[in-house]
């Protein structure tokens, strides 16, 4: 009788070994350990034994119960693990299949470029302002010190709406508007559309974009102009570019300059982008002409300032390696879509 629990243990071990599913193992548990189970039956039959035997049998039965329980637990975990493994294996995905994201739209490369230029200058403390696309001849030419017979005023160069109203040929009229509406210190940039009567080809567009810059304050020097624009070039094209300022002519600045930048593609060695020269013409700039300050209502003795104009298409073409300006306005989704 005393050996009964151990015999039972051997039997249970064999049953557990044979169990393959969670249901099998549950049946084993009920068969041996359940209320009507065989081990329970042994304990119930203990009434016939003497107290010592009863005690001994109780100890043995409890030990065997613990052991069976442990064996069942172990087997259960093994079965669960096997089921998991089977499920994982059946659920395995080919992760190299393409993703199914929502399609992302693109911002137009011109918008992108304007945004980048504006952000750089905003980080240098420039505010943003805008002016109208249709302007007065006064703001576009006269107030900007352009000679009355300057060829750029011709119908062959400039789109006119009336004798006195035109489509602005540059963003510079915003200088006039800003000077007239604000007292120095003034520190603004102004992005926008410009128009010139050019027939479209790979490098010309009758509509294009500029970002104008204007800083007017006491004590502004040409060195400040160099500092600001050199910083812009480095942030736009990378810290290793260098800049070079060449004297140039604009009616509304004196002195005037053009800024060249060392080619960011070949690092100045000479390549296709810089046409072998190692330098790329980037923008025009200069110290605001006192006549412009005066027309704008600023004290030209007290204040000095600088202005610059950046061609957005040119920057975008350089930056993205675009070779035909017309692509911007054809708006082929295969082109636009590259700028998401």
């Amino acid at each position, binding site marked *: 009788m005393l050996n009964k629990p151990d015999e039972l243990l051997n039997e249970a071990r064999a049953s557990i070994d044979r169990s393959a599913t969670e249901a099998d193992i549950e049946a084993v548990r009920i068969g041996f350990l359940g209320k009507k189970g065989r081990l329970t039956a042994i304990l119930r039959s203990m009434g016939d034994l003497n107290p010592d035997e009863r005690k001994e049998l109780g100890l043995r039965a409890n030990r065997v119960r613990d052991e069976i329980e442990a064996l069942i637990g172990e087997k259960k975990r093994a079965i669960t693990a096997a089921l998991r493994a089977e499920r994982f294996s059946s659920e395995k995905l080919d992760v190299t299949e393409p993703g199914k994201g929502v399609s992302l739209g693109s911002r137009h490369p011109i918008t992108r470029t304007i945004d980048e230029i504006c952000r750089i200058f905003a980080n240098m403390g420039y505010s943003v*302002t805008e002016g109208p696309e249709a302007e007065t001849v006064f703001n576009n030419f006269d107030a900007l010190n352009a000679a009355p017979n300057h060829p750029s005023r011709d119908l062959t160069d400039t789109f006119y709406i009336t004798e006195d109203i035109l*489509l602005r040929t540059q963003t510079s009229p915003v200088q006039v508007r800003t000077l007239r509406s604000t007292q120095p*210190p003034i520190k603004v940039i102004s992005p926008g559309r410009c128009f010139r009567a050019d027939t479209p080809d790979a490098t010309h567009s009758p509509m294009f974009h500029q970002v104008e810059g204007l800083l007017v304050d006491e004590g502004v020097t040409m060195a400040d102009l*160099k500092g600001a624009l050199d910083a812009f070039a480095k942030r736009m094209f990378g810290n290793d570019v260098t800049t070079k300022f060449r004297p140039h002519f604009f009616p509304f600045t004196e002195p005037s300059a053009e800024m060249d930048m060392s080619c960011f593609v070949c690092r100045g060695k000479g390549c296709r982008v810089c046409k072998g020269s190692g330098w790329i013409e980037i923008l025009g700039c200069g110290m605001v002409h006192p006549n412009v300050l005066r027309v704008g209502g600023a004290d030209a003795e007290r204040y000095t300032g600088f202005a610059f104009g950046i061609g957005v298409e040119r920057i975008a073409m350089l930056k993205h390696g675009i070779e035909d300006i017309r692509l911007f306005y054809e*708006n082929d989704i295969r082109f636009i879509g590259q700028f998401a």
Partner: protein
Amino acid sequence: MLVPLSWLRQYTDIDADAETFAERMILSGSNVETVRTFGKDIKGVVIGRVLSVERHENSDHLFICRVDVGADTRTIVTGAPNVSPGILVPVALHGSELPGGIRIKKGKLRGVMSEGMICSPEELGFDDKVTPISSKDGIWILPDEFEVGADAPTAMCLDETVVDFEITPNRPDCLSILGMAREAAAVFGAPLRYPNTDAPIASQHTAADFIRVEIRRPDLCGRYAARAAEDIVIGESPWWLQRRLMFAGMRPINNIVDITNYVMLEYGHPIHAFDIRTIAGGVIIVDTAKDGETFTTLDNVTRTLRGDMLLINDGEKGVAIAGVMGGLNSEIEADTRTILVEAANFNPSGVRLTSKALGIRSEASSRFEKGVSAELSGAAADRVCALIAETGAGRVAAGIVDNYPGKAERASIRVRVDRMNALLGTTIGADEMANMLERLEMDVAREPGILRVTPPHVRIDLTEEVDFSEEIGRMYGYDRLDATLHRDNVEVVVPRSLSLRETVRGTLTAMGLSEIQTYSFVSPEGADRIGLPADSPARDFVRLRNPLGEENSVMRTALLPNMLEILKGNFNRSNANVKLFEIGNTFLNAGAGTLPTERLSLSVGAYGVWGFFELKGVVEGVLRRLGIEGAIFESAADTGTYHPGRCARVFLPGSDEVAADRRAIGLLGEIHPDVRAAYDIGADVWGAEIDLEYVIGRADLTRRYEPLDRYPAVTRDVSLLTTEDVTVGAVTEIIAQTGGKLLERAELFDVYRGKQIPDGMKSLSFSLTYRAPDRTLTDEEVAKTHEKILKAIEENTGAGLREV
């Protein structure tokens, strides 16, 4: 401006090689376009004399020539029609090399051995537009001044470097060899030498014997200087003169014309020569033409003049359009014996208007337009005479007839040293500044802290103090200026409209739409193509006076036509599933003399994707992102642009929610099949245009938190059977109005037509959510409100509950 360096070096001493020269000129403000070298790659070309010319037996265009090349004679076959016995020519011998790496070898031409090649100017590296007339389309007939057998590059001085400078419009003085020499001399600190203007007088006459000058319009002609020369023998210019013209980009014509061109290039002052035979009565009158007067210019075109154009006349007839082009009647001819040399100064605007109106652009007119110093006229006329004497072209008459009503003393300009330094950010001393200016041939009087500067008369660009800041800056070197950042105390402001446009862009791109940018000017036909009604205000275009073409002739009043054009372009390229938007200005007439009103608009367009409700979702998404609530969508069957059954007009409610206050902000829908056909797009197209200017004005990006629900909601689904004319909007409105406080929201989750639904009817399924903020609702409470809603719907629309 083409500058042969050997010519420049006549006036100043520049030792630097071409590369250094170009670099330093660029940094001082004379930008270099190109640097071209000539002659270096020519080897084995000699001067030869053609001894005889025979026709080639086997060709109707080839000639067989015997050519003396010094050491011996060679047989050379040429196809040049201008070959003749006796002429001097450049001969490329067997084994010679020409520009571009071309090697010349002897070879048979139609059976005859040719021992080399007689060269044209182009074959020696010249542009055909500078080829001397006699050598055009043929071999180069050289001036008879070379030794036969001499090495041609050496004898002809073909080794040359030509620098092409980009001259800015403020510096017309630099459109001359002397002007560039002045710049170079200043940059390199070298002396400047002027050419000889002193002609030996060999004539018995004086200029006044031949000519009298009367200026009737001193406002248009500030100076008229005239000299004369007799016993002119028209012929070919000497090689040194032809050579310089050719390298400077001008074609040699004859000695007198060449000299006037030479002096124009040298001084930058246009010169005209008349055959004095043709000047009746020996008088030159500078006056305007009669309105409608006709005149034949030397290009043999008869032109009709206006009364404001300056026509030089001799009292009987016109002889030249002042500063623009001479007349055919007074042209220098092969038998011209006596000439009048005109060096006059004409008003820039006058010349510009005349040349524009007549459509003539000459070297002279373009120079006068940019401005020529009147002070140059005398020297330029003298220089022409000196060259006539020097080249033996004729005998120069003494004296000059010089009418100079426009003479003005050049005043000095006060330049403050401190001001210059303040502009440049430098600490240049007064003396150093003065020295820089003196190097540019300026007279400088030094006073404490001040320089009184008189620039040379050719520097018509220097008129006020600030102009000298650039002169000092460029002489000092822009590269030597510091690079600093101005310290300021200003706040950064970004306009609300700009940042909200960026918000809209971000929202639309996140929804998968891509941005386009299109021209602000469009074709007026777009209005017809999108089916706008005849009385639409969008047909009141702002027109350009000088458009590139009809298709870009008016400012856009709407963005939709461009959007459809772009969709069409994409469709034609088989781009699938295109979803686009544009944000841009429209232009509305604001009345005469006023700038047009520019108004921001948003267009959306798509094909190959979407139905109406996806499009509506996009518009709703933008409004929601801008914090705009309560948009009303009403069916719009009247647009012409959109499918009458699939178009909505969008309204925003007025501020006080009064229905009449509401404002239409745009349209959206399926593009009308006729419009689609007009754009030739073979797919359903969805479009919208929204008044973004107004919408942005209503935007509200503030967000107020609403407490999260603490009590459970009760949801009741209901399906209603209604006739087709009952809209979801109307039912939703009734539900919202009768639901009271307990109704949290009502959502449409299904619209069903088909089996079990009679024709002309539809089933609308709503999910109604009830909730109270302060308690759990009882079934009775919910049932009461729910019943009330259903009753209201039934009473107002006749819709009945559908048993599901």
